[in-house]
């Protein structure tokens, strides 16, 4: 018995060997097939990266490399910021010094953030003793002027707006070991929340990808106050399970430096503060500062470390001393014979907290495929939190949507324990799938069964990532059918379409909240819930003395929540007479009269007004289809007020050429630091697509493409669009499929022969 297997093995050995070889061959083919599948998965990952690059709306992502020394030949940059705060107004002067440590002529480019409401009006280029003042020009013209100067070897500076809060600064023809200084100035207003005033100086453009574990809250904060938005939200629905959809679409992203290489872009910062009232506490939220008090109402601050790397935003907070902060502020300026006023008014608040009205809350939750991954749990957690905040006297309903939509209850129901339990179960059972058809859900949410009901406040809370295509239709729906409802948008995920959601909330007279990760759900939703529970003054309207010849922003005026002031910027022929503000406070009429001629004169009010008007025109542009008209108006306002906008840039050109003919000009982007608390590998990953490297865009008119060549090019960075993957798997699949079938056929034949002989 023992010998039998031996014998049979000997007998059938060769045949078995054939079967074996065939099987091996077949397995090889099969493995090839599987490898193709694996390669496909890899391809998908790389493609995701490329898609993102490709979809960036303005300019593009600039890439990074982890190789040490990567940025060594890049120009260096030093920034000095001086901010003067007088009352609610702040004027900042930011000086950036571009230093070329190399032996060639370079063009330096730097992407930097500014506050979203910053009105940038001045740029100066300082070369040695000479100061060249930047001129405001239409964007294309400014670029032409710059490119021409660059080609002629002249020093030139160009300041462009990429997004309302992201700007780029380029300087051409910095000679070997030379430095060029660019100074920009902007105007903004301090933020006020109750008696707390604050001012933020953003220092770093946050990379688009928020690492889940490493996010320091104050850094991730960038989204709510930013315009990271997109006019074409053409996001791809990622397959479920894609852990980190890398899909912020619209930042111009500078190369980011690996912290291992040390920090660059040192920043020095000084603030002089004149509050206009006796000062109490003055604090810097994220940096150590030296504070020197000047009199009762003033202070001077500078960074304790003198110079810090630009890796986290600077925030200054100041509060009044025991005596309460003023409840009203009025500032004015006359420009070209026209008067501009800025009105700030705190509605009564404090101890006598008006009793909040019961609410009718309509929650709309997006469970479309684009919410798959981390977004859906965040949206669910946010909604569950909001449900908990409902009081029994409130009523509510939930609408979920993907390419279909569904109402939980046919009509809003009382927020009693049973109904809340039903709602919780419904929310917990949601999963992300399908397309995004937001309009029907929005219509259903705005359908008000009792439009005349003044005893309840009606709030629509919309939780979505905003991956939608029909913004205009949605804006129209909101503007037309908002009625008494207020729309609160909650942006979910690392890269929601905040531009859309912010504008939608403005049109819906509500507010926008961003939840970037699960850890933020609680605090952000609590802030929102606090707001939702305490609408302080509603239906605010302003009557100006010369109504017909007054242009005031924002329009309409949003409801006021606890701690928020009314802020109005207006232009009129002559600031005289009384402005009357009316609204509803705690069920009673509320009225305040502001004598306009009493205002204190401050420069910069006109610019602030213009900045607000541009923001309003940008929103209008989306709603009306008349892009050209809106663009023309934006251009006019920006040119008139000397402001950088989407349509205008500041350009400065030195008249004397400095770069000798024949010397090539290399273009470099300034690397920026990763925001503090972020991990380089987590943000960019080991498997990030190969760095896109390229050379200076040559001035030749046909040079649409810049390719990398030579050793210097390997380290040069420039702006450009990555070319997407444009092959499908079809040919490979078909080939492998045919091979595999052939192998199967051969194997079958062999096997038959073997069995037949047997």
């Amino acid at each position, binding site marked *: 018995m023992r010998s*039998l297997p031996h014998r*049979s093995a000997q007998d059938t050995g060769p045949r*078995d060997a054939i079967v074996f070889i065939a*099987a091996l061959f077949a397995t090889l083919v*099969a493995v090839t*097939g599987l490898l*193709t599948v694996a390669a496909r998965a890899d*391809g998908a990952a790389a493609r*995701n990266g490329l898609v993102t690059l490709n*979809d960036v709306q*303005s300019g*593009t992502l600039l890439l990074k490399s982890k190789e040490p020394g990567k940025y060594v030949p890049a120009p260096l940059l030093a920034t000095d910021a001086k901010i003067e705060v007088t009352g609610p107004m702040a004027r900042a002067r930011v000086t950036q010094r571009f230093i070329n440590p190399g032996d060639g002529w370079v063009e330096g480019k730097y992407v930097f953030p500014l506050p979203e409401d910053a009105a940038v009006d001045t740029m100066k280029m300082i070369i040695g003793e000479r100061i060249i003042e930047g001129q405001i020009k239409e964007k294309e013209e400014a670029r032409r002027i710059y490119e021409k100067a660059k080609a002629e070897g002249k020093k030139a500076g160009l300041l462009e707006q990429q997004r309302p809060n992201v700007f780029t600064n380029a300087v051409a023809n910095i000679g070997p070991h030379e430095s060029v200084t660019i100074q920009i100035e902007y105007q903004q207003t301090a933020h006020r929340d109750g008696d707390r005033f604050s001012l933020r100086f953003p220092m770093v453009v946050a990379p688009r990808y928020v690492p889940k574990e490493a996010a320091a809250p104050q850094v991730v904060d960038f989204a709510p106050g930013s315009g990271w938005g997109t006019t*074409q939200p*053409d996001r*791809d*629905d990622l397959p479920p399970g894609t852990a980190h959809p890398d899909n912020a679409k619209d930042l111009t992203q500078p190369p980011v430096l690996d912290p291992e290489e040390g920090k660059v872009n040192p920043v020095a910062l000084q603030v002089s503060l004149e509050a206009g009232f006796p000062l109490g506490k003055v604090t810097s939220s994220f940096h150590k500062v030296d504070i020197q008090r000047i009199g009762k109402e003033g202070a001077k601050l500078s960074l304790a470390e003198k110079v810090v790397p630009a890796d986290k935003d600077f925030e200054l907070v100041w509060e009044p001393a025991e005596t309460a902060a003023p409840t009203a502020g009025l500032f004015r300026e006359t420009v070209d014979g026209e008067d501009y006023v800025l009105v700030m008014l705190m509605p009564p608040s404090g101890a006598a907290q008006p009793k909040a009205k019961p609410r009718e809350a309509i929650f709309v939750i997006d469970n479309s*495929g*684009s919410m798959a991954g981390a977004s859906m749990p965040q949206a669910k957690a946010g909604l569950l939190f909001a449900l908990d905040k409902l009081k029994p006297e409130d009523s509510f309903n939930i609408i979920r949507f*993907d*390419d279909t939509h569904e109402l939980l209850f046919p009509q809003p129901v009382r927020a009693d324990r049973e109904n809340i339990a039903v709602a919780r179960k419904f929310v917990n059972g949601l999963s992300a799938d*399908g*397309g995004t058809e937001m309009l029907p859900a929005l219509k259903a949410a705005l359908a008000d069964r009792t439009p005349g009901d003044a005893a309840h406040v009606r709030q629509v809370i919309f939780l979505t990532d905003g991956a939608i*295509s*029909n913004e205009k239709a949605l804006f129209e729906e909101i503007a037309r059918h908002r009625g008494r409802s207020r729309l609160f948008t909650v942006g979910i995920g690392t890269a929601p379409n905040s531009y859309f959601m912010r504008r939608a909330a403005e049109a819906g007279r509500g507010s926008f909240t961003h939840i970037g990760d699960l850890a933020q759900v609680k605090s952000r939703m609590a802030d929102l819930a606090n707001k939702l529970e305490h609408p302080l003054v509603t239906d605010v309207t302003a009557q100006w003395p010369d109504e017909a010849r007054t242009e005031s922003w924002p329009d309409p005026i949003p409801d006021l929540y606890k701690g928020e002031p009314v802020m109005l910027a207006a232009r009129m022929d002559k600031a005289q007479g009384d402005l009357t503000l009316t609204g509803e406070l705690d069920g009673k009429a509320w009225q305040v009269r502001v004598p306009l001629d009493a205002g204190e004169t401050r420069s910069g009010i006109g610019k602030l007004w213009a900045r607000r008007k541009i923001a309003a025109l940008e929103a209008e542009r989306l709603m009306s289809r008349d892009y050209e008209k809106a663009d023309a108006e934006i251009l006019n306002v920006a040119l008139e007020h000397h402001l950088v906008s989407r349509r205008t840039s500041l350009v400065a050109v030195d008249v004397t050429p400095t770069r000798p003919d024949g010397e090539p000009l290399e273009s470099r982007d300034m690397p920026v630091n990763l925001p503090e608390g972020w991990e380089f590998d987590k943000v960019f990953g080991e498997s990030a697509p190969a*760095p*896109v*490297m390229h050379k200076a865009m040559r001035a030749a*008119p046909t*040079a*649409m*493409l810049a*390719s*990398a060549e030579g050793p210097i090019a390997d380290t040069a960075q*420039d702006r*450009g*669009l*990555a*070319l*997407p*993957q*444009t*092959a*499908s*798997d*079809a*040919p*490979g*699949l*078909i*080939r*492998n*499929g*045919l091979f*595999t079938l052939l*192998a*199967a056929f051969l*194997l*079958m034949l062999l*096997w038959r022969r*073997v069995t037949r002989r047997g």
Partner: protein
Amino acid sequence: MTEMPISSVRKRPDWTAPAGAVLTALLIALGGWQLGHGLYIKAKAQLAQMLLDSAWEDSLRTGTPHKAWAWADAWPVAQLSVPRLEISEIVLSNASGEALAFGPGHMSATDLSGKGLSAIAGHRDTHFSFLKELRSGDRIVLTTLEGGRTVYSVTGTQVVDAATTTLDPAAGNGLVLVTCYPFDAVARGSLRYLVIAKQVIS
């Protein structure tokens, strides 16, 4: 004992048979899936263009974008045609991998109004396989909702490495069609074939 050899002969296929059958079945399944999936990709590309055609007609009629199917994440934004080759393709609103399966996609960071640089990407093995036949001087007609009809003339082609080359969206006025290269390659690669066209002033 003497029967044993016979029984052993009869039993011999016992281990090869199931293994062979399973292996063969697996291979047939895998091969079938690969072939089927490959053909499906091709079929999808063709079928989608038919659906997109009618969505595009709707878009032109109403002046607003229409999706070809409700859950689509890309919608027709332009029609690209090459009269000499009798080619007409509907261009989708983005060049994501998902969109490219259905049609060429507009690289949405570039212009689409005919006033700047427009870039459109497509698969070399389906919609953009005709790129290899384009020659200098060929007319390309791009019709968009924003910019109407713009005629371009091919000025040249170029093979570049996507790992080292990017497109400057502000590089002037023109049209760039992008596809993978070489056309008959089976694996994905980083080479791209570009057709560069200038606007024809009419």
